[in-house]
């Protein structure tokens, strides 16, 4: 792959990542991650917060590992995902406003298509 192609692909991923759609995709991925750890019942391992193993047969280290994974997924789904969804809406609305605003002449070379 040539450096121009790499740059073009990088720009494409950048555009997709920093966009309303990119935010929504991230929120959806967080949701899927949470569903997986929730169905796997990793919630039981959050008992590590009181310094207790999940059950008599599980080590505390294993409980901590699974518990932390669940905490990351849970707090991502209740804090990060809603922020991403809201931000996607705000971003899309701002894009619409900016699209309606006429661009000053001579800036086209340094810009990317939305």
């Amino acid at each position, binding site marked *: 792959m040539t450096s121009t192609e790499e740059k073009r692909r990088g720009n494409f991923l950048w555009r997709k990542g920093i966009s309303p759609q990119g935010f929504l995709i991230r929120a959806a991925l967080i949701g899927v991650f949470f569903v997986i750890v929730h169905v796997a019942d990793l919630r039981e391992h959050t*008992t590590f*917060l*009181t310094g207790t193993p999940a059950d008599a047969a599980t080590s505390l280290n294993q409980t901590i590992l699974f518990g932390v994974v669940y905490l990351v997924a849970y707090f991502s789904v209740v804090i990060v995902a809603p922020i991403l969804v809201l931000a996607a809406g705000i971003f899309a609305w701002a894009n619409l406003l900016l699209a309606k605003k006429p*661009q000053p002449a001579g800036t086209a070379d340094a810009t990317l298509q939305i």
Partner: protein
Amino acid sequence: MISCRHRALLGSMSLAIAAAIWLPCLHLLYRQKQDHFRSDSGVSVKAQQLAARHLHLWSAGQSNEITRMRRSNAEWDFMGRSFLAWSLAEMALREPESKSIYVGVIDQIIEDTVRLEREKSFYFFSMSYAKSRPYVQQPARSQFVDSEIALMLAVRRLVESKSEYKPMLQERIVQMVERMKKSPSLSAESYPDECWMFDNVVALVAIQIADELDGEDHSEFIKYWLSLAKQKLIHRETGLLVSSFTWDGTPLDGPEGSSIWMVTHCLRLLDEEFARDQFRRARRELGRELMGFGWSREWPVSWKGARDIDAGAVIPGLEISAGGSGMAFIAASSFADHQFLSSLHTTLDFAAFPKHEGGRLKYCASNQVGDAALLYAMVLGPIWEKAKQGIKP
């Protein structure tokens, strides 16, 4: 068309605005009406569901629950019993129609606990360092075990008299008072040369209730104890009672969230004014609220304490202490601090992962002792009121 830089700026601003909208609203998803977790007369829905799980554990055998707690801390096995017995006594007064069920389980807990203490000694309910060196006062006893069993017996008898329990309580009270009087700090050890404020205040409450039940009078001793504690066992920077001290009264640990909240609740029965002052100070030094969520620190800012196993995990940054926050429910409920209590419950439902199964409730992030302490916070009240009124059972 917008530049990459503008796109990044616009994205960041969108995220910042979204966070500014979402974060202050988040607590609204978890906030509950007060009657869901606290009832003035009966037993709230949440308390009923928590109690149902504990009653189920005691009726179905709870070896897994106990084993997993004992692997971390044998004290929790014991404290889980105490908080449950004290909770059921409160519930028996709140729901007289279910008294026989609750009293039956209290008796089961007392008999099993006393049997284990008799067969395996108090060390069975202590952490391993209890055997690391000799106790100052001989023969060795644990004020931790004595005081909580005494309070179990006392509240059980306050709910309904039981002749077998009268000598058991009296014997324990005599032993505790004798040992406390011999100590320069007027307190007995829970661990070698280590007296805990929590245990000694629970002991005083048991003594006070036993006085009501059996017509004894230890009021002078209690007054003297309080006076000495106010002089020698106060942390200067905060004005709060320290959490542990040596047998001769030298402070060890400063004020601690997993201790002081319960201490303030117990003090209400001994010295209401002092209790309210300690609660106000604890609220200022340890209680925290942010965007509708409440919690307790383990240590005040002015004290740098080591990690204590009783505290559970402490989340850095906000210094959220699992153990301290659990105990904060008890004080907030006891002193009717509705705003703090509500914010604590909001945090509980947000970050302790409630799990409902067949009408039973448990908090996944907690354990049996944590849930029993929460249950106690939800039902406490009638026992202290009855003890204050001096009503004989």
